[in-house]
């Protein structure tokens, strides 16, 4: 089993490399600077969490990586290509902040969507769908339509959809925000297992400091408007992470550092 902690140190070429990245939205009443001068390097096999105040540009950054938004300044490469090239090569799976399920498809068919598009053989699909749904604990809801599911169940369906196919990179935007603690712990553990066994590179947006610390090899702390990276924290936690590691002093120390970064970011503009 590959050690997550080792990943940052490995000499692999960067999967994501951004220099001086900036993005400004032009709106009816003035520009909004969502990202400004972001430098970032993510190596293969890393698990990077992004944490920062609401509206600081986390989603925007993920969207730039995914080629859903064009930066207005700086450069970025994904898998050594342009983001567009990477997207065309189906380099990543994306879990959006909102579930974005298609209302005219059942849950099963929603999960099948990427498989159909990427041309997975029909025989293989059923198995993948069943496994992905079982993973997020939605077995039995295959034939339901999205509006017949609770908010958390919809979010889980959208996670299943992104896990049903094989992509080197996973971009996840607050995937577990609407889940209760128990399910969340379970999915955290599952995600770690998946990551360790497949060597995927994962970019993960979360608001939960413990979650970020528990999962990541690297934690990127961002500050709001204009969204900048204020701190990059390399985790010193071991590769094996039982749930109770969250009570260890090392863990709490990292968590404190993240919290400080977050608080600093807040005080930057939004005095609470």
């Amino acid at each position, binding site marked *: 089993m590959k050690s997550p902690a080792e990943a940052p140190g490995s000499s692999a070429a960067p999967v994501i490399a951004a220099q001086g990245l900036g993005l400004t939205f032009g709106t009816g009443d003035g520009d909004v600077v969502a990202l400004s001068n972001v430098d970032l390097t993510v190596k293969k096999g890393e698990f990077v969490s992004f944490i920062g105040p609401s509206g600081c540009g986390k989603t925007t950054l993920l969207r730039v990586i995914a080629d859903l938004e064009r930066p207005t300044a700086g450069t970025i490469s994904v898998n050594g290509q342009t983001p567009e090239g990477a997207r065309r090569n189906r380099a990543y799976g994306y879990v959006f902040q909102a579930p*974005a399920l298609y209302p*005219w498809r059942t849950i099963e068919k929603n999960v099948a969507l990427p498989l159909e598009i990427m041309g997975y053989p029909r025989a293989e699909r059923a198995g993948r769908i069943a496994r992905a749904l079982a993973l997020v604990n939605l077995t039995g809801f295959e034939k339901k339509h999205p509006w017949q599911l609770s908010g958390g169940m919809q979010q889980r369906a959208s996670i299943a959809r992104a896990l049903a196919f094989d992509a080197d990179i996973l971009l996840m935007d607050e995937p577990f925000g609407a889940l209760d603690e128990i399910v969340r712990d379970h999915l955290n553990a599952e995600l770690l297992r998946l990551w360790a066994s497949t060597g995927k590179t994962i970019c993960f947006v979360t608001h939960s400091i413990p979650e970020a610390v528990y999962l990541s090899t690297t934690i990127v702390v961002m500050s709001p408007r204009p969204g900048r990276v204020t701190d990059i924290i390399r985790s010193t936690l071991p590769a094996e992470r039982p749930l109770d590691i969250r009570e260890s002093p090392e863990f709490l120390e990292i968590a404190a550092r993240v919290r400080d970064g977050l608080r600093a970011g807040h005080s930057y503009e939004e005095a609470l």
Partner: protein
Amino acid sequence: MGQALTRSTPFAIGVVLAVLVLVWYAAAIPMNAPWQQGVYGRAGAVDVPFTQFVGDVWNQDKPILPTPHQVVREIWNTTALVPPHMPRSLLFHAWITLSATLAGFGIGTVLGIGLAVLIVHNRATNRSLMPWIIASQTIPILALAPLIVVIGFNIFTGQLGLPPDPARFLSKAIISAYLSFFPVAVGMVKGLRAPEQIQLDLLATYSASPAQTFWRLRWPSALPYLFASMKVGVAASLVGAVVGELPTGAVAGLGARLLAGSYYGQTIQIWSALFVASILAALLVLAVTLTERLVNRRLGARPA
């Protein structure tokens, strides 16, 4: 029980119809009265009892406004009592018009969808074609219809060697398609652009091809717009087919029948042809509505 009855569709239609029929009979009195007075005047009849007056007004041969029972009787006489293959039968004409309508609607819908797809997917088409599609609809079709007849009919009969009847059918279908493609095109352009950004983004992350994006997202999102447009389009098709029967030599079909009725001042005949055309339209719209329900059910749409 009573609840169920008053809430049923046939009951509601019945009540609304009954009100309309009452208004209609009432309206027929003032509209046809002047003429009746003229008749009485020439005949020297004075002090006609009101009941007789009303009876006469409701039963004129060539009234300004025929009454419901006159129209119904005429429709009955020309459908049930005449073999359907005879030119005297309204069914004969209804079928001729309907077949051109269906052909035109089919062509128009396919064309409208095709154009919308081109417009949504091709920058140059979007910018250059759309204004001209709109302009095309401002050309009064009746002005163009003789041209279609003269040139089109010639091409069909001359170059393509079709006999006059199919050529006439095609000319009508073209006019009918011309009228129906537009609502479909406009509605579909809107519908195909209706998906939310996040739904498009999802497919972008899969690097889905335009065709995949179309079938899996744009098409289902456009369906509500398509059906609303198709209801308008199918009605427009029928209007087109009827209009197309004017210049093509007023040979057969509901339009020809309307026209022929008007040459000889046969208002009752005009109204019955009008009614059959409208019934046809209502049935066609109903067919589209039922298809919509079916499709919605198949798609598992959320009940409203």
